[in-house]
């Protein structure tokens, strides 16, 4: 759990840094962007593997998960793994924690949409993630991704505000295809963006999960990742 949180935090931090690096003098630094994308990829892998194990446990029922999780992940530095002890059983994961995560994460991807157009606007709607989470501490998991996708389109003045780039249609097409590569600009971390998209397009397409959810906190994670996907591809 802690590991997952830490991985998520690092992913968020990386996206924020990617955004900021575009604002600095001298333009985007290819080496820096590559390094950020590498960190983000590592964090994503850890996050996903931790999440998958959690999902499995959720299906199998609560079990002590020390050995599996410990073995399944690459050894993390003490700073990354906040508690060196065994990971807490998933029931202990406070929904408030998870709820805070999207709440905390959302402002950052939101900021990415304010970036002015010195980037080739190859990205699909980063604005999609903007509206709904603001003021909502724990968005209903099932509606999270859908709401984000539609709200920005309908919002009046969104186009003028630059929230909705003209490539919105491409986003949906990409999600449907699930395979289409982002437009080939000299984007520094396009491979990551591609992997994220292909990985998550299925999740976004699938919509809300059916059946009992192990923890309400799981879904906001998906929403967060969808925002991250869009934020990365935005570059």
């Amino acid at each position: 759990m802690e590991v997952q949180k830490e991985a998520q935090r690092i992913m968020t931090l990386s996206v924020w840094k990617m955004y900021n690096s575009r604002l600095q003098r001298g333009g985007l630094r290819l080496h820096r962007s590559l390094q950020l994308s590498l960190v983000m990829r590592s964090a994503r892998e850890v996050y996903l593997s931790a999440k998958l194990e959690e999902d499995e446990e959720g299906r199998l029922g609560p079990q002590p998960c020390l050995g599996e999780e410990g073995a399944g992940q690459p050894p993390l530095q003490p700073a990354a793994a906040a508690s060196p002890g065994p990971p807490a059983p998933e029931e202990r994961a406070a929904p408030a924690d998870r709820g805070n995560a999207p709440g905390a994460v959302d402002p950052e991807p939101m900021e990415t949409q304010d970036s002015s157009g010195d980037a080739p606007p190859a990205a699909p709607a980063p604005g999609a993630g903007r509206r709904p989470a603001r003021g909502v501490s724990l968005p209903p998991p099932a509606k999270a991704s859908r709401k984000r996708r539609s709200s920005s389109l309908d919002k009046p003045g969104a186009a003028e505000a630059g929230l909705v780039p003209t490539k919105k249609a491409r986003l949906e097409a990409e999600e449907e295809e699930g395979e289409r590569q982002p437009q080939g600009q000299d984007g520094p971390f396009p491979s990551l963006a591609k992997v994220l998209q292909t990985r998550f397009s299925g999740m976004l397409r699938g919509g809300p999960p059916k059946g009992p959810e192990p923890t309400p906190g799981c879904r906001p994670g998906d929403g967060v990742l969808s925002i991250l996907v869009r934020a990365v591809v935005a570059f």
Partner: protein
Amino acid sequence: MEGESIYEVDSEDGVGADIISTVEFNHTGELLATGDKGGRVVIFQREPESKNEPYIQGEYNVYSTFQSHEPEFDYLKSLEIEEKINKIKWLPQQNAAHSLLSTNDKTIKLWKVTERDKRPEGYNLKDEEGKLKDLSTVTSLQVPVLKPMDLMVEVTPRRIFANGHTYHVNSISVNSDCETYMSADDLRINLWHLAITDRSFNIVDIKPANMEDLTEVITASEFHPHHCNLFVYSSSKGSLRLCDMRASALCDKHSKLFEEPEDPSNRSFFSEIISSVSDVKFSHSGRYMLTRDYLTVKVWDLNMETKPIETYQVHDYLRSKLCSLYENDCIFDKFECAWNGSDSVIMTGAYNNFFRMFDRNTKRDVTLEASRESSKPRAILKPRRVCVGGKRRKDDISVDSLDFTKKILHTAWHPTENIIAIAATNNLYIFQDKVNSEMH
């Protein structure tokens, strides 16, 4: 090591235009050039030794200052091009003038530094102030003579090598043939002739056909000091590639690949980025290479590709703090490294204005600090220690007290003597080791 001189350029705007971004001795060590973030170059000259006043001999004083690069704007990409000087390299001296190459992110310039200490006087047609004389007042002819004048140092741009790079130039290196030099950006290396500015040859190109497949970039490059056909470039993945220009026109295929397998026990989120090589330097002998990554310096033998022959920990106590260093961006700092003249000692910078020296023969190392308190003239530098828990000695500094805003990224070692130049933000420190010098 004794403290020698400190030079600080006062920053009027206070936004760091005076942050030193590169330091380089010339081939004799008589001149020391520094470049800063504001595009300026300051050249220091060593005072000749005098038997009458032995205590001021060997001091470096300002010789010349000039504006090398100005901020520019790329209208096509809507990008500002920083004027920060990334690298300076001196050309071997071939006549009375000195020449150096300076580069920012996009443009390399060749500057010629000349001295003028005489001026002609006694013109027939012009008076003392240069105004034309009334011809009717000229009754006889005289031959102008050269009279001594106050030394004037003139720096003129002789060549501008522009439009050679799409990405940001990170290094330049003059070939031992003294005719060509190379410039490297993130994905390409170009070979230039010093006399030709309108064309260059691309000798390395690692740009993938699809940018989405990009996995590594070029981080530094250097020509071999003796073999004009050999050069090395380092990558963000921690590997070194030695290339031979005789093999083919495009040196994408390396002659030798120097790479050390990663230690799996050290794996973390940040393993990949801390293995990126930030600097590579050939030894003076040409037999070895020195590389710096975030936590270590390594010595490689050109004859062994599988692993370095020596690895020195610069600040291993930071390994557990990589996450915080990622947050405050320090993990992206690019430290340089340097050999001494005899290739027996290597030096590199660290945080808290510390710099480290490793003696390859005795295997001893020392941590020194570049600070005003410790750098009064002829003050002896005291070795410092960072304590990582356990018993703490007096004057030790704990890891958590280190100041990460004070970093020594750029250092240079005199080519023959034990004189080092340390750039600490906008201060330049010059230290001399008087014990080994011949002045005693």
